[in-house]
């Protein structure tokens, strides 16, 4: 059924359709309306679940991780400082191989305080062992939540679904909400091989000494390798049933593009307009929207971008002393490839600063008019 929904509403309905059994979250802007809407959905009986109103994000993830270990399908949502407060639990949840699904509404990390969108919160958690999928629309957000439980429960790794704070979380669009019976047939109930049960007692997370610890980490890496295939397969299955698929990347006018813009999230929607306008003027530009950041699709992105002469990376984040995180990852992925495009780095849209069509145009113009990058990333809209 088609409904007019914000990103947060679409996600809340997605969690309901997935029949999540234990949900725990702590309010934080701009995620808060997910907490509110799910608490209503549980209270009015549309979802048979326990909703636990914890006192912090650390407790939220500790709570749903333990619930997952006890065999329940578990969900949480957060943003920015809440995600940072979960840091220890992020490692713990993936280390325990618990298929928790979390939505993070992307928001800048303070200080200074800022409640608006950028990607520094989730990108700075990239090494915590979670799959990360970045969404561009409310439709993609609800679909990705549904896909994520299936992915997580197959590979036993947690999934973080990312939506741009306000740009996606609070903006309404028409969303095709899947039917419950369709979701039920796509996503069977969670039946873990190991769980906390008096019938078959296990001790979870005991000490692994130096001879064993590395094996746990290697197993998790194998699972992340497998996740890459599973994410693609689940996306294909989803497309076959629901008519929508997303891939590792969203690619626009890439096949003959000399200059490609690489970015995450909703900035791609703005960029799409600019690409069309530039194409009308005969400029061979393209757009690659990175949806899957973990696992990083190194081979695929190398093949995709290897055809272009130049790639402009727009990072909505910055790692002090290193530059944009997406650009770093891309350069690492391209290192071993034969055909390497020149990489132009741009930092923009921090703390909710709009990324306008004019900004995207400037990025394309700069990249087309320079033979190579100047060395340091270009900061968009900052006085020199």
């Amino acid at each position, binding site marked *: 059924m088609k409904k007019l929904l914000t990103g947060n509403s679409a996600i809340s309905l997605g969690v309901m359709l997935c029949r999540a*059994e234990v949900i725990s979250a702590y309010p934080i802007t701009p995620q808060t309306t997910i907490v509110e809407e799910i608490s209503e959905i549980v209270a009015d009986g549309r979802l048979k679940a326990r909703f636990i109103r914890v006192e912090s994000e650390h407790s939220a993830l500790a709570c749903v991780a*333990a619930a997952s270990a006890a065999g329940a399908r*578990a969900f949480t949502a957060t943003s920015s400082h809440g995600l940072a407060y979960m840091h220890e639990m992020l490692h713990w949840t993936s280390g325990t191989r618990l298929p928790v699904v979390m939505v993070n509404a992307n928001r800048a990390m303070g200080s200074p305080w800022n409640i608006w969108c950028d990607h520094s919160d989730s990108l700075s958690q990239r090494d915590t062992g979670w799959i990360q999928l970045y969404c561009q629309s409310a439709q993609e957000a609800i679909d990705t939540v549904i896909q994520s439980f299936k992915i997580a429960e197959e590979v036993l790794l947690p999934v973080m679904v990312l939506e741009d704070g306000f740009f996606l979380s609070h903006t309404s669009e028409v969303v095709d909400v899947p039917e419950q019976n369709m979701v039920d047939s796509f996503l069977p109930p969670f039946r873990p091989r190991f769980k906390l049960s008096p019938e078959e007692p296990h001790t979870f997370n005991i000490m692994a000494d130096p001879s064993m610890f590395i094996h746990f980490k290697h197993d998790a890496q194998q699972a992340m390798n497998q996740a890459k295939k599973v994410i693609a397969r689940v996306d294909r299955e989803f497309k076959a049933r629901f008519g929508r698929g997303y891939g590792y990347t969203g690619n626009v006018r890439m096949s003959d593009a000399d200059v490609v813009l690489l970015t995450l999230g909703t900035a791609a929607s703005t960029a799409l307009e600019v690409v069309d306008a530039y194409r009308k003027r005969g400029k061979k530009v393209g757009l690659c929207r990175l949806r899957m950041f973990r696992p990083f699709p190194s081979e695929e992105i190398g093949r995709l971008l290897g055809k272009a002469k130049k790639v402009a990376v727009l990072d909505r984040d910055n790692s002090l002393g290193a530059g944009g995180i997406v650009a770093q990852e891309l350069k690492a992925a391209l290192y071993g490839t034969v055909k390497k495009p020149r990489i132009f780095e741009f930092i923009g849209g921090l703390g909710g600063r709009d990324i306008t069509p004019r900004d995207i145009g400037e990025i394309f113009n700069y990249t087309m008019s320079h033979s190579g990058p100047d060395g340091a990333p270009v900061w968009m809209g900052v006085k020199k």
Partner: protein
Amino acid sequence: MSGIEPQAKDLLEEYLYSGHGACPGCAMPIVLRTIFHALGEKTIAAITAGCFGTISGTYPASPIRIPAYNTPFPSAGAAASGIRAALDVKGDRETTVIAVAGDGGTFDIGIQAISAAAERNDDYIFICYDNEAYMNTGIQRSSATPWGAWTTTTPPSDLKAQPKKDIVRILAAHRVPYVATASIAYVDDFVRKIRKARETRGFKFIYTLSPCPVGWRFPSEITIRLARLAVQTRVFPLYEVEDGERYTLSVEPEGIPVSEYLKPQGRFNFLREGDMERIQENVDREWERLVRRF
């Protein structure tokens, strides 16, 4: 309430095997065995960092026969809520959920999650084994360390200068249905309280003193005697608090001098002249305050 009074057969089933890593004379394995005996196999435990977390096995061996889930230091209170919620949603009302933490995981780094679970009145038993310092990392001061005690962060020239936090009153102030203190020197009373907690819906807090031969500096064969002296000197009275209001004394202490309890412990070797009297006065004053609530 049937099945609350302990029977000899309760002690036959073993849920904590040999091979755990506790130090000789440690009270905590006795605490655990008492709890597990009282509850039986239909029990799931959330364990946090601390001595219990450390002794709960090295992969792939575990000494614990009930299902157990280790969770990071601040989160025992939240993890137990999650386990309870998962069981509830699956319709399992039979299994008891417990959280077990030391004084660090209860008084200090863990108190936020515990206070929240108590306020929500989540249905599980939180058990604190208090060895009165961060023993697992090597005897550092906690907010449960008593006044005048030596630890590795309160050296002889700068002994603990604050009284310990009154954790029982803090939990009772949440008006949870059941709070009780228990002692390994009074096993029948301990078992009865654990079972009463199991039969009570909502949040339950069981608080027990866990004498630590290494950290308190006493010979490992007198653990139980010290636990008993703590009760008899009124340092650690045994009582229950129901709904935050109804206080009941479980064991009438003899009120023997507190020095009998402190002298065998090397951690109190650095008390200065007059300190013993001051400690006795504090114990007497706290006892008078407590007695008024019965």
